[in-house]
């Protein structure tokens, strides 16, 4: 389960605790360092605590939703790649999401292998340049 992604730290943000925990376990199992947050504000706090290579962010969350969180993250860490996960809960155009600075988006439920590839690609797109990397 080791590989290039073994060095990566991923922040999973979703208000579905069961989903976050299971996905975190599966990504950890594949060598990633996974940190989790159950809301947008908690995600911002988590980012302050330490460096993250890629953020995987759910679009529809209670309170501060994915779009608002994305805007905050991009405002604070413009080069930090963010992958949005969506349950197609909104009719908002994916083009608009990308225009806000998201690196990519995936629809739930997504294939784990696809997610790993997108995380890897996102990390390689800005290696060591994420704003909150020390």
């Amino acid at each position: 389960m080791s590989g290039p992604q073994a060095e990566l730290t991923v922040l999973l943000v979703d208000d579905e605790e069961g989903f976050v925990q299971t996905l975190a376990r599966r990504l950890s199992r594949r060598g990633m360092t996974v940190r989790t947050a159950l809301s947008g504000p908690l995600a911002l706090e988590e980012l302050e605590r330490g460096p993250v290579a890629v953020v995987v962010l759910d679009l529809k969350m209670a309170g501060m939703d994915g779009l608002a969180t994305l805007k905050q993250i991009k405002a604070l860490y413009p080069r930090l790649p963010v992958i949005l996960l969506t349950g197609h809960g909104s009719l908002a155009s994916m083009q608009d999401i990308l225009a806000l600075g998201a690196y990519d988006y995936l629809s739930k439920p997504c294939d784990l292998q696809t997610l790993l590839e997108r995380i890897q690609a996102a990390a390689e797109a800005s290696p060591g340049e994420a704003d909150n990397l020390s």
Partner: protein
Amino acid sequence: MSSQEPQAPYYKFLGRKIALAIAVVAFIPYALTYFVFYSNFQESLRSQVLNSLRQVVESHSRTIDDFLNERLSDLRYTANLHSVSEMSQPAEMQNILNSINAVYRVYVDLGFLNAQGRHLAYAGPYGLREADYADALWFKEVMAKGLYVSDVFKGVRGVPHFIIAVKVSRDGQNYVLRATIDIAQFSSLVEGVRLGNTGEAFILNQEGLYQTQSRSHGFLLSDADLPLPEYFTGVRVDENIIRRGRSVVMAETWLKYGQWLLICQQDTEDALGQLSTTLHLAIAIGGFGLLIVTLTTVVFTRHLVGRIAQADREKELLNEQVIQSGKLSALGELAAGVAHEINNPVAIMIEEAGWVQDLMTDEEECFHKSPNHQEFERALRQINTQGQRCKEITHKLLGFARRTDSPVELTQINDLIHEVVDFLERPASYANIQIVQDLAPGLPQVNASPSELQQVLINLIKNSTDAMEKTGGTITVSTRPAGSMGVILSVKDDGPGIPEAVLPRIFDPFFTTKPVGQGTGLGLSICFGIVSKLGGKIEVTGGQGKGATFQVHLPAVSQTMLAASGAAAKP
């Protein structure tokens, strides 16, 4: 069945109100103008007729007065010109008579009398040489007043005539020069008056006796049976005088200082005949005008109400489309929410299954020993597979939802058909209905709102599935190019078909053959409205027992539009 029928009384009422409003607006000025002109015209014509009568009386009054004055002047002149002895000679008197008759042969006889009323000389056809007028009224009058013009009377001869006389004074002696006027000559002055068919003039004396003959009413010296007015000056004109049972217009004036009354009269019908004809013509023109206004009002009102009814129907249809569109939009929002709510648990489920799979991999040896390890793996794959299926279903649903408000764009109709059929074929299969696609490749794109076109296709397929709900069957959705017309989309079923009698009304709003509560009658009319809006047309064929085929002709996108679209797509 049709939406118009229940509303027919409303449009009748509306039609009556509009017609009444137009009629009031058009009729009142028309009627006012017409009656003002009519009454002015009538008054003008009437005045013209009466004035012409007045002028006849005035001119003839002057003529008669002139005639009498001239005769009196003749006698005075003669008396002045000749001596008493000359005028006392019968032969000379004859010469004088011949002389004054030389120009106007109006004198019948001429006599020269002494103060005792006896002829000193007489010239004329009557043997009046010895006549004694000493007690004659006229003689006394002329001796008293110096001149005299008599009424027409028969006198001693028993023949109607009238005389004029002047007193002649010479050497302290009084004489009278008297002449009889030819009544025919005098009468011709007024009897020649002709007005229309019944107009005439005549003279009455103070006793109401005709002094000249009346063509229609009486002979000379007969009683006219007319109430004579008090003396007045000038000419008086009266209308609607009933004379011997006939209505007449009459102009009259006093002559000879109130002794004679000159009357010019004409039957009212005759006098105002032209007026009457003209007024009848005016009434006919007025009536014709009213007829035109009425016809125009009726035609215009019918046209207007027809247009209003049509506009109402279109508005109604549009409203239904808006409502339908709103429903679809709301459905889309709902579907999006549902998709999210389903996708999240499905995602968790798949992740959990994946996690179990991971754990089984870690403990591969242990699990391989289990007799059920293959069943575990199959179950996990099945969870994953069904999770992906859920995802596909929700994504399709969202695909529809996202298009509910999509604008007009270049659309490949075959792709649209794939999506719709994919979505509908499963529910159709529950009723043993198979949906077959027979799509021609390489079709031109059409310019349409995908959601609207989707709605057309759904409505047509749903129409067929409803028809075959109990029997099952096959629906064939096909496309083919149609030359300049673009694309023909066809939805054909082998259901019970549509009765011939129903075919002409199949696209009418609210027309349905389904039981009450099971169909709105709007589906096909919405299809018709959408296809028409896109510049295409929709047709239906098939009769009872022949199945039904709906053909939608959609115009292809023009090269210009394609070029514009291509240019717009370039960065």
